[in-house]
């Protein structure tokens, strides 16, 4: 693919439109564009790159590219048009950008850039910018273009040791491996996506399996609960039948039951009487202790009466004795004084009269009465108190009578009980009691069974609801994991595809590496002036390269000179271009900068014999030392950059050979 025309308008120093027409390229593929430093050689390289790939979405870059004079003119336009010819096909690419309104003072004043693509004069697929850019990249990918359009003084970066990831990608693109790489990455990405989805579905499948197991357990529980309900219902039915039978048996014993009730009542009465008898026994025990007083009551009464009389007599006698003692004392004093207490003189006769008057005898005057030794007063009080005690207490006889009646009652009750028990002889009291208890137990069991049935039916209902929820979840998950098998197959295919693409990339890359190494060594040997020193240019699998000397040693690239690095890099680029899948012209900006005369001549020879379009942006010194002469047979178009120092603008004029 040759560049047949490049038209630059208002781009960097090029004010207005400048057209480079490479009409002679078919016969003479080398074009020279001369220009001193700072006149606009590199701008041509930049213009071509901007035309093809834009400004990487940075409007600031476009603003800087926009010619400063043109920016001040309303409605001005920056545009680059490149025309290519590849066999019978022609491609025209036009990129332009303009200000939004009036002058362009900042990047924000610029509108979006526009691109037009014509293929054989026809607009390409509706001019969608994205589609156009894809098409341009098909013709010459942007990262591969660095090996076609480059600054000769900057290519030595390729010889600096390990290439960057971007460089390796660019090399892969040049070799057409990027499609496989891209396909492999797509396969890996798809593998990851499918694997992620599969993992998600596997997780769902596990959940589904877990739910299915849970469902089985619920079903089992339901079956068991239903069986238990049926069993309980049977038991309940049986229990009711048993109860009916027991009730029938009990009815047959109804008469006996009445006797039993009577017996129960009688036994209670007897128990009450027994209690009373015990109480009476206690009372009788107390009465027994005082029975002797009941017996002695008449004696005590008589003795108390006697003692009272004796006590009264004793008192009377005591008082008489006291009186007599007093009178005797008085009489003794009167007799001794011979006169009365009233002063009258008393003779014996008068004294005898006085004694009679006092009721005393001569004997009384001579004897002194002494009281009895028995304390009748105390005895009387004691006996009377004892009698009072007897009267306040129920007599033993009365208690005996009561006890007798009570024991008669007890005897009667015992007789009745014995009679009843005789009547009950045909019946078994224990059996009746057992029947009653059995009926009660039966009813209790029925109640228990009914409760259990209620509980079980509640559990069945709960389990049923839970089962419905599980079914819903299982259905939902089942729908989700339906595609799992297919997804697993897809994953296997994708893995195999990714491995296949990886193998292709590896094998192709390895094969191409050897070919590029041979071609690059050939170019290197054509350019270098140290043929005796170096054996070959080695290219590793990662496309880093080194020089191998005749001894088989590989000097570190950082130790060789800048010029040699430039030669090595150029050799590599030329070798790489020999196997490029994209046909493109080589546009080299000042390729001879650091090189000596011999190297320049050797490069010129190589370029002359290259057999493809080469556009060289050169200073006057680049073409010295016979370079131009070597190239002369293949130079088709030659241009001169003319610079206006007043306006700082450049134009390009065709130079006559």
């Amino acid at each position, binding site marked *: 693919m040759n560049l047949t025309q490049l038209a630059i308008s208002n781009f960097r120093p090029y004010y207005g439109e400048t057209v480079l027409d490479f009409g002679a390229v078919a016969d003479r593929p080398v074009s020279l564009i001369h220009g001193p430093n700072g006149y606009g050689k590199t701008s041509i390289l930049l213009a071509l790159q901007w035309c093809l790939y834009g400004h990487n979405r940075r409007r600031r870059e476009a603003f800087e590219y926009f010619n400063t004079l043109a920016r001040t003119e309303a409605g001005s336009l920056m545009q680059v048009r490149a025309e290519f010819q590849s066999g019978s096909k022609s491609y025209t690419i036009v990129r332009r950008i303009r200000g939004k309104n009036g002058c362009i003072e900042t990047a924000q004043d610029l509108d979006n850039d526009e691109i037009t693509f014509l293929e054989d004069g026809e607009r390409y697929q509706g001019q969608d910018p994205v589609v156009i850019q894809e098409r341009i990249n098909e013709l010459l990918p942007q990262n591969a273009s660095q090996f076609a359009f480059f600054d000769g003084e900057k290519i030595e970066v390729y010889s600096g040791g390990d290439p960057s990831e971007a460089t390796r990608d660019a090399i892969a693109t040049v070799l057409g491996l990027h499609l496989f790489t891209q396909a492999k990455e797509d396969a890996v990405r798809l593998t990851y996506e499918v694997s992620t989805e599969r993992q998600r579905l596997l997780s769902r499948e596990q959940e589904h399996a877990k739910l299915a197991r849970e469902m089985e357990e619920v079903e089992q529980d339901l079956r068991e609960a239903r069986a238990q309900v049926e069993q309980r219902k049977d038991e309940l039915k049986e229990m009711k039948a048993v109860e009916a039978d027991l009730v029938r048996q009990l009815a047959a014993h109804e008469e006996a039951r009445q006797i039993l009730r009577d017996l129960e009542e009688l036994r209670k009465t007897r128990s009450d009487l027994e209690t009373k008898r015990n109480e009476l026994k206690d009372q009788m*025990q107390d009465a027994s*202790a005082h*029975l002797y007083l009941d017996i*002695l009551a008449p*004696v005590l009464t008589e003795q*108390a009466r006697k003692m009272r009389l004796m006590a009264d007599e004793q008192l009377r006698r005591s008082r008489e004795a006291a009186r007599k003692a007093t009178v005797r004392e008085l009489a003794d004093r009167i007799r001794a004084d011979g006169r009365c207490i009233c002063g009258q003189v008393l003779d014996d006769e008068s004294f005898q009269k006085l004694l009679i008057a006092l009721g005393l005898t001569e004997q009384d005057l001579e004897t002194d009465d002494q009281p009895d030794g028995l304390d009748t007063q105390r005895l009387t009080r004691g*006996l009377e108190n*004892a009698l009072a005690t007897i009267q306040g207490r129920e007599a033993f006889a009365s208690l*005996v009578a009561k006890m007798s009646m009570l024991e008669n009652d007890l005897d009667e009750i015992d007789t009745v009980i014995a009679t009843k028990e005789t009547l009950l002889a045909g019946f078994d009291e224990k059996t009746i009691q057992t029947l009653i208890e059995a009926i009660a137990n039966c009813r209790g069991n029925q109640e228990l069974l009914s409760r259990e049935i209620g509980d079980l039916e509640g559990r069945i209902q709960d389990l049923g609801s839970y089962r419905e929820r599980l079914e819903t979840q299982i259905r939902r998950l089942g729908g989700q994991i339906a595609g799992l098998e297919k997804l697993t197959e897809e994953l296997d295919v994708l893995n195999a595809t990714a491995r296949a693409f990886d193998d292709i990339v590896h094998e192709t890359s390895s094969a191409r590496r050897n070919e590029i190494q041979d071609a690059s060594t050939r170019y290197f040997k054509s350019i270098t002036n140290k043929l005796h020193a170096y054996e070959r240019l080695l290219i590793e699998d990662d496309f880093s390269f080194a020089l191998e000397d005749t001894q088989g040693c590989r000097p570190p690239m950082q130790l060789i000179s800048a010029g040699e690095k430039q030669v090595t890099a150029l050799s590599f680029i030329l070798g790489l271009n020999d196997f490029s899948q994209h046909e493109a012209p080589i546009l080299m900006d000042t390729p001879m900068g650091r090189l000596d005369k011999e190297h320049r001549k050797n490069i010129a020879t190589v370029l002359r014999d290259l057999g493809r379009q080469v556009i060289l942006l050169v200073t006057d010194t680049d073409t010295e030392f016979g370079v131009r002469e070597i190239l002369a047979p293949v130079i088709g178009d030659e241009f001169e950059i003319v610079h206006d120092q007043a306006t700082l603008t450049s134009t390009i004029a065709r130079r006559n050979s």
Partner: protein
Amino acid sequence: MSQLERPWGGAAKIYTKKRRLYDELTDRKNSKKLPRLMDTFHVAAALGIRLNRADLLAEGPREELINVYTVDSEGVLWLLMSSLYPDASGQERFEKLVAHAEYGVERLAEEYRTFGSIQSALDRLL
């Protein structure tokens, strides 16, 4: 020591020649008999006093019956015996009390055997 403190002349125990009769008339669990030997002694003595009869205590072996200090806890017998025998000493009154009882228990036993209960025997005797 005063008479009140030693009312029965210092006797410590009551001895009887009719212990068997006392035992015959005494049974705590039988309501037709008397519960304690003391009660039987009291009833026998009271019966002798009431009937004003006594058996002289003949010479010969006698059996212990009860302690004296439990005989008359309420003091009624001492009052009665003092009023009945004002000129007797405490010892003499005690001996008379026992003699009354010896008579009384003999009669009570005779009647009990006939009528089957103390109360019936007493009803008969009194």
